[in-house]
């Protein structure tokens, strides 16, 4: 076991995968000479050299596209978006080139790429350094999406993502990078966290909160507070939203009969609507209350602190919604 931050866990997972498999390489802006804006690839260039640690021009379309082309020829590239927000500049390559490649190739070609980068708010990053528009990609067949909440999961999911034969979007949460730590299994255990398996960081009986990413911590904080009020909350951390572990969600809902879906992205058109609709379809008779959604308000993430706080979900909002659900 090794104690590391969320960021170190990602760095270590990538490092170990590059050690293990010479087909794995990383590319992106400032990832070699600088080691990445946040230092995720610090030291990589010295160890793995310029061919496997590639500083690219400022060109997200070329970065994702180059990852695709290399993957088509058998490589396993990991592309960094300096901030995940900039994926909008490489959008076509993600949704129309990477996601569809295997399909268009009649099954001949695998597309083992990872597109990773810091996402999310709560750090004053403003409109273009706070985004979590994972819902765009949730809608696109052919993609997988991981959003780890803990250092262990960040490590294990990254390893699974690198080894997966499909394009994986890997949303790291910059608020968590240095704020949380975890105990990472030693490399010999070859620990991974499979894509598509939710975890249940807290068991409970009265209501279920289904969430992912940084919101897992908010949910746990809320659950702790609600314990005082004798409301027993089960928290499900989806870990990946695509594939989506509906089995774990439905089992929990069948037990608690009350559910809240929680995410950091704006509510309208967010992944929460789809998950809520699925729960309603598959467990309609098990629901004792309408499914609640807690999410960001339908706005952008603004700069000034009072504004950012107003837009993004808060622990208080989760607690209030849980109370309302519980009373229903």
């Amino acid at each position, binding site marked *: 076991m090794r104690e590391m931050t969320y960021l170190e866990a990602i760095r270590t997972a990538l490092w170990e995968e590059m050690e293990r498999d010479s*087909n794995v390489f990383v590319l992106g802006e400032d990832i070699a000479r600088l080691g990445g804006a946040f230092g995720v690839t610090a030291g990589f260039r010295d160890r793995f050299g310029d061919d*496997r640690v*590639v500083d690219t021009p400022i060109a997200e379309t070329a970065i994702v596209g180059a990852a695709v082309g290399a993957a088509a020829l058998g*490589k396993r590239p990991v592309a960094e978006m300096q901030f995940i927000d900039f994926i909008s500049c490489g959008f076509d390559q993600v949704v129309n080139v990477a996601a569809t490649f295997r399909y268009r190739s009649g*099954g001949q070609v695998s597309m083992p790429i990872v597109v990773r980068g810091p996402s999310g708010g709560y750090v004053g990053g403003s409109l273009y350094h706070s985004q979590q528009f994972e819902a765009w990609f949730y809608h696109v067949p052919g993609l*997988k999406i991981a959003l780890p909440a803990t250092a262990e999961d960040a490590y294990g999911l990254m390893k699974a993502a690198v080894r997966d034969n499909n394009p994986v979007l890997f949303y790291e949460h910059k608020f968590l990078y240095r704020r949380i730590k975890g105990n990472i299994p030693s490399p010999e255990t070859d620990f991974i966290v499979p894509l598509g398996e939710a975890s249940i960081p807290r068991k409970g009986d009265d209501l279920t909160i289904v969430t992912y990413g940084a919101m897992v911590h908010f949910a746990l904080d809320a659950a702790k507070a609600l314990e005082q009020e004798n409301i027993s909350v089960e928290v499900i951390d989806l870990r990946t939203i695509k594939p989506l572990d509906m089995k774990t969600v439905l089992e929990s809902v069948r037990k608690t009969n009350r559910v809240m879906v929680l995410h950091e992205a704006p509510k309208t058109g967010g992944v929460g609507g789809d998950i809520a609709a699925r729960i309603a379809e598959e467990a309609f008779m098990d629901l004792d209350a309408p499914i609640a959604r807690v999410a960001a308000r339908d706005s952008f993430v603004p700069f000034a602190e009072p504004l950012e706080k107003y837009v993004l979900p808060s622990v208080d909002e989760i607690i209030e919604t849980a109370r309302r659900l519980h009373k229903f």
Partner: protein
Amino acid sequence: MSAKLKNRAETEEDQQAAPSYRDQLTKDDLLEMYRRMWLARLFDETLYDLKKKGRLRRGNVYGSRGQEAILVGTTYPLRAHDFVSPIHRDMPAFHFKGMPLEQVMAQVWGKATAPTRGKDSWSHMGDISLGLIHSTSMLGSTVPVACGAAWALKLDGKGDSVVLTYNGEGATATGAFHEGANFAGVHKLPLILVIENNQYAYSTPLELNVPTGRVADRAIGYGMPGIVVDGNDVLAVYDETYHAFERARRGDGPTLIECVTYRVQGHADHDETRARQYRPVEEIEEWEAKDPLPRFRNYLLGTGNFSEAELPEPPPEVVRQIHDAVEIAINSPDPEPATAMEDIYDESAGVSR
């Protein structure tokens, strides 16, 4: 710091020093090239004809008539371990890079036997084992992908392999083209950017996509040689492509080759009427007179090494080849409906743990 790059064709010393690769072509080579030019022509004519007769079921035909010298001249230097990414106007290039003609045709008819198994249409196909990289509809988007393929070759130490992409002159206006070309220039990748400058992007004249009217001017900013070649002269195209291959193999990086030609037909089969309205008919006629097929034939006859009989118009075996491929494609099975849900994901385990 910045080596001022000139267009190679304009550099006199260079032109003198450059070996003329065409002189090394054997008679068999030349006959094969002649045959291929006809294959491209008949591919085009056959599909236009079948579309008109309503036998194509769905999809448009983007013709390459008049651009055959580019398709043949750029693919002839290719070896099995090189990679190519054809786009909409390059359908015959799939065959020239090794894809059986009946497979190309099966793709046109959306058959289960097509490389995409009926999933996608027209040129959005490939076969990595043959060195054919799949494109999408989005113009310019193959260039970044080609960069990645070149990078993979580099990682594997396959310094002898080269990646070649096609783009229309219009596609060079896209951001994707720029990001890819610039990436290739920065990293000196073994990439050849063949630009089929056929004067129009759909209805849009050259100057509305390329401010100077010369695509090769873009190469300067990418730090690569920008060659302009007569795109209706198959041996000139061959020569320049060969030079670019040699350059790439030497590790000297990418080359942009602007092949100047003309789209004598409409943008696609549905555009025949309008294509004679949005541009001067005289212009079309002028270029029809520059047809690369008779031109190549006359050249070959002029060398004195070929008899008329050796250069039939068209070569009957090519007619048969096309005919057979169409028959096979038409008689191939349609994909099973439920296969629409296959190959969205690779369900295999990925790499072992």
